[in-house]
C-alpha cells in the first residue's frame, strides 16, 4: 500500500485545494500517470501516481483544502490488491453511464486478473495452452451462459464445450446441470466465480457512449459546485390553492380576451414576492462568506424547454399586481420557448421558483442556483379531500418545497417564510388583482 501525499508545491506553499480526481477508487493507475489535480494560488497542478497499482482509497474529497503532506489517497500495489475491484454485480452495471469513463482510461491490454483470494491457486500462466482453453470456455462463452454458470455456481472450465473453439453453449450447460453434477465450486478452488470482465465482455455490453457537451460540462460543474458549497436543506408545506383557483376560473374569460390569462403561477409568484419582501434573508445572495442583500425582489421562474430549461426573471415582482405578473409571465414564457429572450431578461434573479408541477411532480428538491440562497419548488395542484372545521372538504392542494442554504438561513426562518406564503395564498381576494 502506497500513500499519495499532498506535495510541497513551493517553499511558502502550506496547503492546496483538491480540484479533481482523475481516477476512481478501484481503477488501475500506472506510476507517473496523472492521478488528481490540485490548485494553489492560481496554479493548477497535476499530481502523478507515486506507484503502479489499484487506487484503493480516496481520503480527500474534491473541493477540500488540505495541508502539505496530508495523505490524499492510497494505492494498493498489485500483490496486495486482495479485493477484486470487479465483482459479479459490477458486470451487470456495465451499461450505466459511469462505466465508459472508467473503461476509457483502462489500459489497452487486458488488466491482469485480480489475484485470487485463495493463495494456493497458481497465477494463470498466459502461455499454458490448457489454461488458455479453460480461459476460453470461461470467458468466451456468451454472457448468458456465463451468468447461468454463475447463478448455478458452476465452473465453466469443468464443462465440456461443443461450441466454437470449445466454448460452452447454453445446451452444454443445461446438459451438465441436468446430469446433476455437483457444483464445480466445491471440487476445485475457483477464482472464476468472479470473472474479471474480459475486453470482449465489455465490448458486448457497451451501449454506445458520448461526451458531455461543453455547456453540459459547465452546467454540471456549476451544479456540483452548488451541491458542494451550499448546505442544502428542504422544508415542505402543503398549500391550499382553492381561493387562487377560484379567482383564476372567474377571471379566466375577461383576461384571456386581453391576453395573459391569470394562472395559479402568477398568484404564487406574487405571494412569494410579498413573502420575500417580508423575509429579506431569503432574497439575499451568499458569495463565499459575503452576504449581499438586495433591494429588488427579482423572481426567476424556471421554464422547461424541449431540452433543458431557462429561467426568465420577473423584476421587482413585489411591486407588481397579479395581473401584471401574469401578463409578463406569459410573455416571457412564450419568448423563452421560442428562444427570443434578451440576455438581461434571464439575469439578476434573487430567488427562483421551479414549476415542478408542470410535469406532474408532487414537489422537487432542486439544487440552489448560486449565489442565491433558496429555491421554491411548486408541485402539481390536485383536488384532495382535506379536513376543514371537522368536515371533509375538497380543496385544490399542492406541495411547496423550499430548498435553502442553511449556512445562512435557519430552518425556523425558512418555515416562517413558508407559513407566510401559505397565509398569503389563502388570503387572495379581489384586492390582489
Amino acid at each position, binding site marked *: 500500500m502506497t500513500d499519495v501525499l499532498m506535495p510541497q*508545491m513551493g517553499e511558502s*506553499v502550506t496547503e492546496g485545494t483538491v480540484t479533481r480526481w482523475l481516477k476512481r477508487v478501484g481503477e488501475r493507475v500506472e506510476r*507517473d500517470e496523472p492521478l488528481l489535480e490540485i*490548485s494553489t494560488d*492560481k496554479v493548477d497542478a497535476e499530481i502523478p501516481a507515486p506507484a503502479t497499482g489499484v487506487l484503493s482509497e480516496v481520503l480527500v474529497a474534491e473541493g477540500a483544502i488540505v495541508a502539505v503532506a496530508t495523505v490524499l489517497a492510497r494505492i494498493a500495489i498489485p500483490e496486495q490488491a486482495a479485493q477484486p475491484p470487479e465483482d459479479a454485480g459490477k458486470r451487470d452495471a456495465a451499461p450505466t453511464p459511469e462505466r465508459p469513463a472508467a473503461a476509457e482510461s483502462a489500459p489497452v491490454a487486458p488488466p491482469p486478473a485480480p489475484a485470487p483470494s485463495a493463495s494456493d491457486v497458481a497465477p494463470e500462466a498466459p502461455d499454458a495452452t490448457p489454461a488458455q482453453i479453460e480461459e476460453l470456455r470461461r470467458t468466451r462463452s456468451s454472457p448468458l451462459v456465463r451468468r447461468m454458470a454463475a447463478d448455478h455456481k458452476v465452473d465453466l472450465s469443468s464443462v465440456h464445450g461443443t461450441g466454437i473453439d470449445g466454448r460452452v453453449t447454453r445446451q452444454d450447460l443445461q446438459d451438465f446441470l441436468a446430469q446433476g453434477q455437483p457444483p464445480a465450486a466445491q471440487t476445485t478452488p475457483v477464482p472464476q466465480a468472479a470473472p474479471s470482465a474480459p475486453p470482449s465482455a465489455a465490448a458486448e455490453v457497451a451501449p454506445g457512449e458520448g461526451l458531455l457537451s461543453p455547456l453540459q460540462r459547465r452546467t454540471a460543474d456549476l451544479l456540483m*459546485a452548488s451541491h458542494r458549497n451550499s448546505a442544502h436543506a428542504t422544508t415542505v408545506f402543503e398549500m391550499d390553492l382553492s381561493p387562487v383557483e377560484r379567482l383564476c376560473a372567474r377571471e379566466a374569460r375577461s383576461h384571456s380576451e386581453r391576453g395573459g390569462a391569470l394562472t395559479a403561477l402568477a398568484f404564487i409568484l406574487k405571494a412569494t414576492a410579498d413573502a420575500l419582501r417580508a423575509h429579506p434573508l431569503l432574497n439575499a*445572495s451568499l458569495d463565499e462568506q459575503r452576504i449581499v442583500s438586495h433591494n429588488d425582489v427579482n423572481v426567476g421562474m424556471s421554464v422547461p424547454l424541449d431540452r433543458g430549461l431557462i429561467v426568465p426573471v420577473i423584476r421587482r415582482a413585489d411591486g407588481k399586481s397579479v395581473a401584471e405578473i401574469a401578463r409578463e409571465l406569459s410573455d416571457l414564457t412564450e419568448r423563452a420557448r421560442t428562444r427570443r429572450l434578451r*440576455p438581461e431578461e434571464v439575469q439578476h434573479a434573487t430567488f427562483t421558483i421551479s414549476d415542478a408541477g408542470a410535469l406532474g411532480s408532487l414537489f422537487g428538491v432542486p439544487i440552489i442556483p448560486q449565489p442565491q440562497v433558496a429555491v421554491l419548488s411548486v408541485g402539481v395542484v390536485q383536488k384532495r379531500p382535506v379536513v376543514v372545521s371537522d368536515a371533509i372538504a375538497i380543496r385544490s392542494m399542492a406541495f411547496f418545497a423550499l430548498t435553502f442554504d442553511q449556512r445562512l438561513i435557519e430552518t425556523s426562518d425558512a418555515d416562517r417564510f413558508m407559513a407566510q406564503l401559505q397565509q398569503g395564498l389563502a388570503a387572495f381576494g379581489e384586492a390582489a388583482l
Partner: protein
Amino acid sequence: MPRLLTIRRLGTISYADGLALQADLVQQRQRQLVPDTLLLLEHRPVFTLGRNARAANVLLPVEALRSRGFDVFDTGRGGDVTYHGPGQIVGYPIIDLAPDRCDVHRYVRDLEEVMIRACADFGVRAERIAGLTGAWVAGAKVGAIGVRISRWVTSHGFALNVTTDLAPFKLIVPCGLRDKPVTRLADLTSPPPSIEDVYESLARQVVAVFDYPQ
C-alpha cells in the same frame, strides 16, 4: 540539456490551437525532447473559464456570448473567467521547473516580475497587490496570470493588455474580482507603445527573470 529558451512568435491564433500546441509541447518537454519554450501570441476574442469559474462571474449566458461572436472555452488552468483578444500579448512559457525552481509561488511571482519589468520599459510603474496575482497599475489590472503545472512543466501563463479592447471585460467579472477594473498599457503612457516593442520587451524580460543565457 543546457538551459535554453526557444521563443516562438505565433501571431494571432485561436484559443483551441493554442491549447493543442501547449499540450503537445508539455508532453515533449516532460520527455526532455524539446528545450524550454516561450510562446508569444495574441488570441482571437475568447472568454475562458478556469477550473474555478463561478457562474456569477459570467454576466451573460454562454449562448449569449457566443451569439455576440465570442468563443467560450473551458480550460484546464486555474483561476476564474477571463477574456483574451487582439492587442493583448499572451505568453505561454512551457518550462521545466525541475530541479531547482520547483515552487509554484515563486513561478507566479516571476511571471508578475516579467510583466512589471516590461511595463517599466515603457515608463509605467506596475506593482503586485498582496493576496492577488497579476500586475497592477493604480488598482487596475494590466496583466493577468493563470498557470497549469504538470510534473513541474508549466503551461498557460500571462496576458498583458497593450491595446486590448476593454469592453468585453464588462461582460464578465474578470478573475472573479468584482471591484477591480482592468486597464491596458496604451492608456497608461503617452504616446502608446507599439505592440511590437512590447513583444520584444516581454521576451527580453522572460530571459532575464528566468536566468536564461542572453
